[in-house]
């Protein structure tokens, strides 16, 4: 076989798209359709499923608009990961396929399903409204247009990266908290909230923050980092979430929710002992009454199985706790400083 034929084989091949299908008007449950088409290297997943729609099955339904990675319409799960179909190369996905030559395509998760690859976006819009995802200008509306705000490089950089968000909802789809609680604020909305809260032109920081620390808010995040790994614009979403938390802790303390108290209990333990005092963690997070009511049966079972955590007096400080405390002090100091700086402005 000559070099040119080898190359030819690499440049074009049969690819199977295993696509999630469901039309609530006729189907009782979802199923997969396999479409096998011959494709050339360099083609995107969106162009491939467009080809299927135009030439094989016109009823295949998905959203797509700009085809250039900026409108956010065509987010879907490709090989178990949410991403934009228009910026995803088929050949890259072939490398990741579990079954050789087969690319699995599914709708986004954590949003109500409409048909095939289309999900309902209204819940996300509703949350943007609930958490005031807009700049509430320091300038009264009658004054708008007369003069521009002066914004320093530093102030600009605080929100610049977050404004890359195209609301494609890939992070929403992969969020592990949303899997459990549909009411959870969601990573995209936290990112946008952060972007508004650090904007020097915005006037409703405190009010927005007060909403974010309620139940299903910023303290519910478990730091799994899925959102950040997923983000199609490579936005450090977790920095935004941490940013809101630090801001909330500094200006509101730990009284807001069990999430905040949980975080504080962690911090205390690490500072004092270098490890967790698990036995009292539920009490410090949720109080005695809640713990007795909800965890007593489990505690009894743990005693029977001899799996109880050591009682607090037996949790000794880790070796090298002094060095750890020093580092801890350094790590936490910037939170307070950031806050002082903000309120000093």
């Amino acid at each position, binding site marked *: 076989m000559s070099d040119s034929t080898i190359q030819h084989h690499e440049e074009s091949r049969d690819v199977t798209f295993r696509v999630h299908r469901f*039309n609530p*008007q*006729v189907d009782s449950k979802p199923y997969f359709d396999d479409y096998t088409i011959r494709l050339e290297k*360099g083609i*995107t997943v969106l162009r491939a499923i467009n080809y299927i*729609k*135009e*030439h094989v*099955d*016109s*009823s295949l*339904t*998905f*959203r*797509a*608009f*700009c*085809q*250039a*990675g*900026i*409108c*956010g*319409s065509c987010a879907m799960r490709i090989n178990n990961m949410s991403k934009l179909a228009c*910026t995803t*190369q088929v050949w890259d996905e072939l490398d990741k396929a579990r079954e050789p030559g087969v690319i699995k395509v599914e709708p986004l998760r954590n949003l109500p399903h*409409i*048909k095939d690859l289309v999900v309902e*976006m*209204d819940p996300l*819009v509703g949350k*943007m*409204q609930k958490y*005031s995802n*807009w*700049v*509430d*200008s320091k*300038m009264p*509306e009658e004054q*708008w*247009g*007369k*003069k*521009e*705000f*002066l*914004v*320093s*490089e530093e102030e*600009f950089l605080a*929100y*610049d990266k977050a*404004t*890359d968000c*195209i*609301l494609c909802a890939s992070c929403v789809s992969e969020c592990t908290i949303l899997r459990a609680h549909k009411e959870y604020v969601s990573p995209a909305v936290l990112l946008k909230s952060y972007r*508004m809260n650090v904007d020097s*032109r*915005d006037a409703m920081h405190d009010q927005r923050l007060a909403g974010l620390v309620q139940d299903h808010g910023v303290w519910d995040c478990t730091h799994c980092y899925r959102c950040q790994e997923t983000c199609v614009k490579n936005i450090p979403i977790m920095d935004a979430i941490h940013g809101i938390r630090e801001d909330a802790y500094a200006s509101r303390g730990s009284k807001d929710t069990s999430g905040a108290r949980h975080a504080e209990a962690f911090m205390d333990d690490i500072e004092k002992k270098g490890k967790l005092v698990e036995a009292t963690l539920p009490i410090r997070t949720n109080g005695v009454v809640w713990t007795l009511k909800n965890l007593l049966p489990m505690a009894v079972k743990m005693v029977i199985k001899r799996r109880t955590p050591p009682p607090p007096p037996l949790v000794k400080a880790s070796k090298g706790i002094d060095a750890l405390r020093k580092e801890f002090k350094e790590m936490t100091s910037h939170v307070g400083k950031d806050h002082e700086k903000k309120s000093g402005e």
Partner: protein
Amino acid sequence: MKPFDIVIVGGGGAGLYAAMEAMKTNPGLNIAVLSKIYPNRSHTSAAQGGANAALANKAKDDTVEMHIFDTIKGSDYLADQDAVEVLCSEAPKIIRELDNMGTPWSRMDDKTIAQRPFGGAGRPRCCYCADKTGHTILQTLYEQCLRKGVIFFNEYFALDLSVDGSRSRGLIAMNIKTGKIEAFPAKTVIFATGGYAKMYWNRSSNAAGNTGDGQAITYRAGIPLKDMEFVQFHPTGLRKSGLLVTEGARGEGGYLTNALGERFMSRYAPEKMELGPRDLVSRSLETEILEGRGFDSPAGKYLHLDLRHLGADIIKSRLPQIREMCMYFEGVDPIDDPVPVRPTAHYSMGGIDTDNLGRTVMQGVYAAGECGCVSVHGANRLGGNSLLDILVFGRIAGRAAAEECQKFNPTSIPEGELAEKEHELRSFMQPKGHYERYGALREELGHTLGMNVGIFREASKIKLGIKEIESLKERFEHVRVFDTGDIYNTNLLQVLELKNMLDLAETVAAGALVREESRGSHTRTDFPTRNDEKWHKHTIYTMEGGHPKIGYKPVTMGRYELQERTY
């Protein structure tokens, strides 16, 4: 449905600004924005470069007057000068207003809004946010509309105007999620559905949905269109996809080079070089290719946009999205390699004929943005003036509708019209002995337009194009929709969009044939010069018997006399 005071069709920059301004003008009005996609997906988001305004932040001697002159000259003197005056004098105010409501404009060291040079502009007056300007403006407007509680009908596809003699009764639209045809009785309707350049299909940088829905609906309802033959080709589309590399890339100092390694713009615009106006730069690229100085590849002939000398820092900070796109769609990192580019259909100067308040000839019907034609861009739009256009005239149309709707009586739409529409749509789904696929027709339409009504035009080719469009229209009668369901039927939607493009393609080709001169984006090789005596006028299109009938309208002049246009 409860009658509306204002129904806005389209949720891009023009539509959202209109909604905000209408609410501001009269908070008691019942206003709805209807969009076939979620508003934050609108094509405004794809505008990369920026919006022009003589803020004089960067060049202290910049003035509104200079902006006006650049725009008129750029339009090849076909723009209406009173409209251009409105556009440019409102510009600084609207840019500041966006800043006041949260648009993340890039800044200069003195903390003021940054400005960059752009094609055809005498001063650096293009305000930007890196290369995501349109995206951030759209987000800001959408956020503010949510703040104000604007009522959105997301994923509704506009079908028809309901017309009662010389006035509109409102809009008929399909709820995409349910397939139900619904009436939107309204005292006023503002069309802000964007451009029609997607009719060039694979030779277009536009989003799949830029199919001229608003223009087609109003055209069929008897409202005239204007200057449809003027379609702008952007010089730097990516070779394979036609997707756009912003003019900002040249604004930052990028070079255009040919296969001989020459910066060939020295032949065509020795002074402005790469920053000549778009029509001229596009023709220059096309000429280089036609004369054999392009590169060859299976995906077609192309030239180079070279950014390497700008360095990694500038590329990463000012053109991050562009870098990403080059890597995704061409496999090229502009830091290391030149980007393969060719001209691509990009912007429609023509549109629904309106006055300076966005009003059409039909009472209660308005248009704004790329959908309308005021006209501020004439025969060629300057880069950075389209975002400005949608903002300024979106706001004006919103205000005009809010003020005028009070004078109009409430309306209702007869039930029969809905049933008729329903029947019409269902007929696409009937099995046909011989059927056509819409995808093939769509591609052929783009191909014939690109070949025959593209950058360089001549009578014989345009005639061929017209014949092919007519034959495509006949074949369209046999198009079959295979998805017979009601819910989210994109098969049906794409067929309806194709119908809109076919109707409008006929006007583009007819206008291209009749205008026997070369002006702005319209270049006739058989009539290579501008002919002011005969053709210094707008073309006007009305539908008669399913085809365009062409009339004319004088250009509103002002301070600036006709001059030869050189750069």
